[in-house]
């Protein structure tokens, strides 16, 4: 059973931030609650104060212009991201990722901000946003700061949010030309948390097709989403082909310290990193060439 808490339902960002400032440390934020309520029902999380920001309409938006790039309000539900024509057109990988995130019921209520702040290394959005070089806007009463998506996860279920801070916006820069991105995860059933997952972004140089930039971010391979930097180094500056992508997978598999659970041993996960880095990179490369 869930333990009682004192409850607030702010309607604006300012109200929410004031509450956070007042109760910092003792308050938890709930958005869609799709992760949080499960944990609370199991009795693993209690809180004195619960700040329910689901009603802060101002944080529900998807905006895009070529200059600023994509801006997603933290309270945008997964389903909106999945279905957004803008995102399907310009950041297809986000829509594809959302399509396999849990099930429709979860996506209809859960928010991208809530997902990111829950900090589960098995989560899908984080590695994709890392691959997209995204930034996050964190606000507190009296100020805000921008942090790299990559810097946001600190540890298993722990993110870089100060007690009086709130995630308000996800910023994804416009993709450079000749960039392709893809996310592949190992599911037994559609919607499963990935046993492992790989998000890859590849940018090719238009002149000679050489890999100008590559980002490989992995889910469920460590206590946070993990960038496979050594694997990336293998690919930068080269003309990519199958065997290079296979090599990248192998290198990435050595960079990870995967969890062990009922869904897979560490060994198996390492093997799967090889497969999924290769698959995601292959798709990203195809898309980069087509772009």
């Amino acid at each position: 059973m869930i333990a009682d808490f004192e409850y607030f339902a702010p309607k604006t960002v300012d109200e929410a931030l004031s509450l956070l400032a007042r109760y910092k440390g003792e308050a938890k934020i709930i958005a869609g609650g799709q992760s949080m309520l499960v944990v609370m029902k199991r009795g693993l999380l209690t809180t004195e104060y619960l700040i329910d920001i689901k009603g802060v309409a101002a944080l529900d938006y998807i905006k895009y212009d070529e200059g600023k790039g994509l801006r997603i309000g933290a309270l945008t539900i997964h389903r909106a991201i999945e279905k957004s024509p803008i995102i399907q057109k310009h950041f297809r990988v986000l829509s594809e990722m959302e399509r396999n995130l849990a099930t429709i019921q979860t996506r209809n209520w859960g928010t991208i901000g809530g997902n990111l702040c829950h900090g589960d290394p098995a989560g899908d959005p984080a590695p994709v946003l890392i691959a997209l070089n995204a930034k996050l806007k964190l606000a507190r009463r009296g100020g805000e700061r921008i942090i790299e998506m990559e810097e946001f996860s600190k540890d298993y279920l722990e993110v870089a949010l100060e007690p009086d801070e709130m995630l308000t916006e996800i910023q994804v820069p416009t993709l450079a030309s000749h960039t392709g991105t893809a996310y592949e995860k190992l599911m037994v059933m559609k919607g499963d948390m990935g046993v492992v997952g790989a998000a890859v972004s590849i940018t090719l140089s238009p002149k000679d097709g050489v890999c100008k930039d590559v980002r490989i971010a992995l889910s469920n391979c460590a206590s946070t989403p993990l960038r496979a930097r050594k694997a990336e180094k293998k690919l930068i500056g080269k003309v990519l082909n199958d065997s290079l992508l296979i090599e990248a997978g192998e290198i990435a598999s050595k960079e990870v310290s995967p969890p062990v659970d009922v869904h897979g041993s560490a060994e198996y996960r390492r093997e799967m990193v090889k497969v999924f880095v290769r698959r995601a990179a292959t798709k990203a490369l195809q898309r980069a060439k087509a772009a």
Partner: protein
Amino acid sequence: MKDELKELKLTVNGRPYELKVKAKTLLVELLRNELKLTGTKVGCLDSACGACTVNIDGKAVRSCSVLALQANGRKVTTIEGVADGDKLHPIQEAMVEYGAIECGFCTPGMVMSAKALLDENPNPTREEVREAIQGNLCADEGYVKYIEAIEIAAEKMRGGR
């Protein structure tokens, strides 16, 4: 105060309610215990089974994973609000006629997921039908007849049969 009752105004199956609830009340608890709408079921603790699926503003949502207070100002439809008096909704009719229902425990959730699908997408592909009920666990029926019944209902609703 932690167990202070909070005001909640919402519409359930077309009927407006003004209630006072404890903040920690889940929507499914409100529906079943307060409003005595026991058609919505509880099957798990992990947001996994979908037996608690309702529609909030037309969208399929797990009522076990929504605080009742979050439904403030919203329109909730439960299984009890799907039929039109004695007249079954085409989805319900199809499920009855084609033998899709076995023990029936997952059925309300299935109907709500199917309804949300067809209200938004009147001509779904088979894949989309499967996706729509992927969050609804059944233990009996094999899903085959549920999928077929939803497709038949969709056709009927489009003016087919």
